[in-house]
């Protein structure tokens, strides 16, 4: 018995020792960087969900930022200084995000932070950076209250480079009305998910204001095992289209169920639709689905083509919107860093002022600027899936 206790103790001790020693590593942005100058590194924090529910997005965001850092360093860095990324996992939880933000602002002393991945983590973590006066660029949050007028207080250090649903959805709704002739819809949403609930509220507001009838609202759960019931109930209302505010997982189920019961029925979605996983998993059922997005793969703009090619070369896969936004954010930050007087000892308020002045930066998202409330100004791409490709329709 005693032996066994010591055995367990030993295992614990070894585990803790093995992990404790390296608790503060930081990921280097550029594996093959040949440090060109003696200038101190410019540390940029990245807080993303590599584990937990958000780890569907975190990994491609990581790819995006690492690709950008590599290319920037290969091209001479930040005015000669090397750009170093400090990447931390927020575990998709609020406290994980807050912990990472605290660590990066106080211990790593990063010049700015990109992230975190999920909106609910963001509203908890951003105040940390605000009070440490460290600029933040949100790279994937789409809900309301992230920038501008924040629920939690003054947020003049917070920026957002990801297109909010409150910008994308009105465009989608107006295209649905004008081009697709939608007069009535059934609105479905995952009630226990912040992203979906936010989208639902925005859809509801915009559909109502543009005079489209909402025949029924159907709530389901993000963990629902099967959506045939809710979809059947939605189709029973015979709407012109089904609007679904959910993440990709439930969206795929909705598309497939709709296709099975009523092929050709129009399905309109939010940001959750804008991932290749939709086409891969739903296959033919995804045909015709419409959503508004910040980016799409097939965009022929040269900056985007360059990004897509480089991404494919490095990771042997197509990028998604999360990768594109993460990649773009690094370049947006670079643009501001270059304009900030002394890069090496960045005064956070100076950097913030420069980020505020961002206009017309060329990114895979298109020409990018921040508006007065620190939110994205960029083109909204309303896309429809045609022949297994996202195709622009506005």
């Amino acid at each position: 018995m005693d032996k066994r206790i010591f055995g367990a103790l030993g295992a614990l001790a070894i585990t803790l020792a093995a992990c404790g020693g390296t608790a503060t590593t930081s990921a280097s942005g550029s594996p093959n960087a040949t440090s060109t100058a003696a200038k101190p590194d410019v540390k940029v924090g990245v807080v993303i969900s590599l584990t937990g529910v958000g780890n569907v997005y975190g990994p491609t965001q990581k790819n995006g930022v690492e690709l950008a850092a590599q290319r920037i360093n290969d091209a001479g860095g930040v005015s000669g200084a090397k750009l170093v990324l400090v990447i931390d996992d927020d575990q998709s939880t609020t406290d994980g995000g807050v912990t990472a933000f605290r660590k990066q602002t106080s211990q790593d002393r990063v010049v700015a932070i990109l992230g975190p991945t999920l909106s609910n983590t963001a509203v908890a973590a951003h105040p940390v950076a605000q009070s440490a006066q460290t600029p933040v660029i949100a790279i994937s949050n789409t809900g309301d209250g992230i920038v501008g007028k924040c629920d939690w207080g003054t947020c003049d250090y917070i920026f957002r480079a990801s297109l909010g649903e409150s910008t994308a959805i009105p465009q989608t709704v107006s295209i649905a009305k004008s081009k697709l002739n939608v007069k009535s819809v059934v609105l479905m949403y995952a009630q226990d998910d912040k992203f979906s609930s936010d989208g639902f509220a925005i859809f509801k507001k915009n559909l109502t204001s543009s005079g489209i009838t909402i025949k029924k609202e159907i709530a389901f759960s993000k963990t629902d095992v099967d959506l045939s019931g809710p979809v059947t109930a939605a189709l029973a209302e015979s709407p012109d289209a089904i609007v679904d505010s959910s993440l990709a997982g439930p969206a795929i189920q909705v598309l497939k169920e709709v296709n099975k019961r009523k092929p050709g029925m129009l399905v309109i979605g939010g940001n959750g639709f804008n991932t290749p996983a939709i086409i891969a998993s739903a296959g033919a059922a995804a045909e015709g689905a419409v959503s508004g997005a910040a980016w799409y793969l097939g965009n022929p703009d040269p900056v985007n083509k360059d990004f897509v090619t480089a991404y494919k070369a490095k990771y042997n896969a197509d990028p998604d919107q999360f990768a594109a936004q993460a990649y773009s954010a690094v370049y947006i930050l670079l643009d501001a860093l270059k304009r900030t007087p002394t890069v090496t000892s960045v005064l956070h308020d100076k950097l913030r002022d420069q980020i505020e002045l961002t206009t017309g930066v060329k990114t895979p998202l298109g020409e990018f600027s921040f508006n007065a409330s620190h939110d994205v100004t960029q083109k909204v791409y309303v896309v429809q899936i045609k022949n297994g490709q996202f195709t622009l329709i506005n």
Partner: protein
Amino acid sequence: MDGLQQFFDAYQTTIGFIGLNAMLALSVWLTLYTGQLTLGNAAFAGIAAYGSALLTMKAGYPFPLALACGALLAAAVSLPLGATVFRLRGVYLAIATLAFGEVVRVAILAIPITGRGQGLVGIPPKTELWHIFASLLVIAYVCARLRISTVGRAWAAIREDELAAASQGIPVRRYKLAAFVLGALIAGWAGGLGAHFDFAIQPDEFGFARAVQILVFAVVGGIPNVFGPILGALLFTALPAVLQPLQEYRDIFQGVILVLVIVYLPRGLATLLELRRTARLRTVGAEDVA
């Protein structure tokens, strides 16, 4: 000392959560010490978190008053619940309290004032670390002293043998209920503190996964004394941060540690603190519940 300050700043949240989790672990410890397996404490924390946050945000209550109201609300809910579910035992009791937790979660999702699925954002961050640890100290002290009082002995007697305990004149149902309600009160206090520590809360934070996590803190830590649950909360809250470099393998390590502790330290990590050989019989743990 700069390094220490830096470390402290960086891990402030983790440190805070260790305290909050330790309180939650103690809240479930009370019922475990009585030999009852309940899984409702995450929901009690949720009720108090939403209750107190809404009071500070919408009704402008001062923070301490809102905290107290939240905790009392949780306790008030636990009383009729406990009175009904303590007819059940073992896994049935656990599942009944779990079902109650899910009903609470669904109710939060359905009531508009809670922000539903969008969560409640913009809670004033009034909680400071010293609030958390002062509370923990008081709660741990009360639990430790109660343990060696007539009440604690009655709880232990109920755990060891309910029938014999009743024969000694102990009103078993009432004592179980007292442990449950006191647990709800503590969970509620921790929930309120947590809500004001974090700016935002969401219904998911108080669901099944959380309930199980709280149980794991207490059971893996051990239930012979109040140090067990605190130790468990410390280990399993700090572990993700400590294991951060292992990223992908972190869950695996946690799982392995969980199984190892249960298999080789049946009465929890607290066993390690007991030096007397025969003390093994004295210590109680998962072995003695349900």
